[in-house]
C-alpha cells in the first residue's frame, strides 16, 4: 500500500513539467529511485532504503541538526534503549575485543549468516595500544575508562552510546548498534567491558 502511494507520487512528479534552474530534489524521489536501483534485493531489503525520522532529519541537515531537531532525536533514541535484565552492564572484554575487530555482518555477501555480527570498532576508533591498524573517523578511545576513573555513570553512558549513539550525540556517524539490531545486548556488554574494565588493554 505504502509502496503504491510512493510510486503514485513518483508518477505525479514525472508529470511535473519544467525543472527549476536549481534542480531541487525531493527526498521522496530519491527514495523511489533507490527502490528501482536495487532490483536484485530480496523483498525484505526494501526497509533498508526507507529512512526513519532520525535519518531523514540527519540527512537533510547533513548531520548538523537544529537545537529543536537535536532534542527530538535524543529523546527518540533514548526511548529505544533496552538494558540487561540482570542490571549488569559489563561483560567480557576479551569477547569485546573480538567484536571490535570484526567487520562481519549484514552485507549482501554475509548471507546466510556464518558468524555473529561484528561492531568493527577499530575501523573508526583507536582502542588498545597493540592494535595500530585503527581508523580516525571517530575519537580515540585509548584509556577511556581509566581517564574517567571507571565511574559507574560512565559505564552506563558507554552502554547507551553503543546501543544508540544519537541519545547523547544527535546525528552521530556511529551506527545504532542496539536499536538497529546489529549487536545483541550481551555483545554490547562485552564492548562496554572492553572500553570500561580496568583489566582491559584499552585502559593499559
Amino acid at each position: 500500500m505504502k509502496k503504491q502511494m510512493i510510486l503514485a507520487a513518483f508518477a505525479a512528479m514525472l508529470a511535473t513539467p519544467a525543472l527549476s534552474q536549481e534542480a531541487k530534489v525531493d527526498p521522496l524521489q530519491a527514495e523511489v529511485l533507490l527502490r528501482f536501483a536495487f532490483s536484485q534485493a530480496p523483498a525484505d531489503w526494501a526497509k533498508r532504503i526507507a529512512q526513519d525520522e532520525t535519518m531523514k532529519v540527519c540527512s537533510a541537515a547533513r548531520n548538523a541538526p537544529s537545537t529543536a531537531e537535536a532534542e527530538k532525536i535524543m529523546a527518540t533514541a533514548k526511548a529505544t534503549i533496552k538494558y540487561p535484565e540482570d542490571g549488569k552492564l559489563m561483560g567480557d572484554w576479551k569477547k569485546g575485543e573480538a567484536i571490535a575487530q570484526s567487520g562481519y555482518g549484514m552485507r549482501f555477501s554475509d548471507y546466510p549468516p556464518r558468524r555473529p555480527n561484528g561492531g568493527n570498532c577499530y575501523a573508526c576508533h583507536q582502542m588498545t595500544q597493540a592494535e595500530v591498524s585503527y581508523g580516525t573517523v571517530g575519537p580515540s578511545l585509548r584509556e577511556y575508562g581509566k581517564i574517567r576513573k571507571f565511574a559507574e555513570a560512565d559505564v552506563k553512558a558507554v552502554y547507551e552510546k553503543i546501543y544508540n549513539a544519537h541519545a547523547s550525540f544527535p546525528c552521530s556517524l556511529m551506527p545504532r548498534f542496539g536499536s538497529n539490531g546489529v549487536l545483541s545486548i550481551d555483545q554490547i556488554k562485552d564492548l562496554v567491558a572492553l572500553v570500561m574494565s580496568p583489566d582491559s588493554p584499552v585502559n593499559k
Partner: protein
Amino acid sequence: MRGWRRQFAATAMAGIGLGLGIMATGFVPLAEAQTRGEADRARKAYEEHMKRMDEAEKAPTAKPAPQAQSAPAAAPKAAAAPAAPAVKPAMSQADQDAATERGLEQYRRMMKEDPWSNPALLDADRGEALWTDKRGPKKVSLAETCDLGKGVGNVDGAFAEMPRYFADVDRVMDTETRILWCMENFQDFDSTAFRKSPHPGGGQPVKDVGAMATFIASKSAGMKIASHADHPKEKEAIALGEMLFFRRQAPFDFSCATCHAESGKRIRLQPLPFLSDPKEAKVVVGEWPAYRVSNTHVMTMQHRLLDCYWQMRMHKLDFGSEVSVALSAYLYDRARGGTSAAPGLKR
C-alpha cells in the same frame, strides 16, 4: 604494436600479481599462472620488477607519498607493544598495510617512468578490440555506430566530458551506461545476464563493458575533467547525486558522507578522500577505471559505487541505474577541472 603492448602488460600483470598480490591481501592470483612456463615467466617478470623497485628506492630523487610516511612510523610501535589480546598473524595487519603501501608507492613511481606497465592497459587493449570489432547478432562495431557525445565512433576526449545528457535517450549517462546502451541498440546485445552480474569477482578480468570503458577513458588521459552541467537533466542528476551522497540509510545508518565528507580521516589504515570537496575529488575521481591491486583487476566507477553500497549494507546497485549515474554525475561535477588520469592504479 597492439600485440607487443598486450604481451608486455601480461607479464607486468603477472609480476604485480605475484609481488604486490602476496604483500597486499589474501586475494593471491597464483591460480592465474596455470602452466609451468607461465609461472616461470611470471616469476622472472616479478624478479625484474623487484630489481627495478630496489633501484627506484635507491634513486635520490624518489619521494615517498605522504600516506606512506605515517604507516612505517607506526610499525615499530607494534613490535614493542605487549602481546595483543586477539589472535594475530605473524605479520600484523598494520605491518602488512605499511608494506603494501610502500610496495604500491614504488610501483606507482615505476609506472610514471614507464606508463605501459599498468596492468589496466591490457584491459584497455582488449576494450579497443571490442570497440572496433564487428560484434553481436547485427555484426556491427561500436566504432561505426556508437556516439559517446563527440560524434559517432569518436573516442578522443569523450570520457573527460562524461557523464552527459544524450538526446537520443533523453537521459544522462556515464561512459559505461552509454556503452551498454550502444551494445543493446546497435549490436542487438542481450544484456540480461550481464545486468545480473556486471562486475568481475576477485582475480577475474574486468568484463567487456568495463574493458571498453577503460579503453575510452585512456583516450582522455591527461585532459581536464569537463563533465557536463548545462542541460536541466544534467543539473538534476548532479543534484540527485548530491542528495544521495548525504542520504543515510540501512541498518548501519551510513551515507557516502559518513566516510567521505571530511579531510584526513581513515578507515583502519586506509586514507579516505573527502569527495564532496573539489580539491580532493579532483585528485582521485579521475583515476577510475583503475587497476585495483587488492582485487587484482580493473574496477570501474560503477563497480566502485556498488562496492561502497555493499559496505553501506545495501544490496547490489543496478548497473546504469539512475542512482549510479547520478552519483557519478555528482562526483565528476566535484572533480571538474581536475585531470582525467584513468586508468589509474589503486590499492
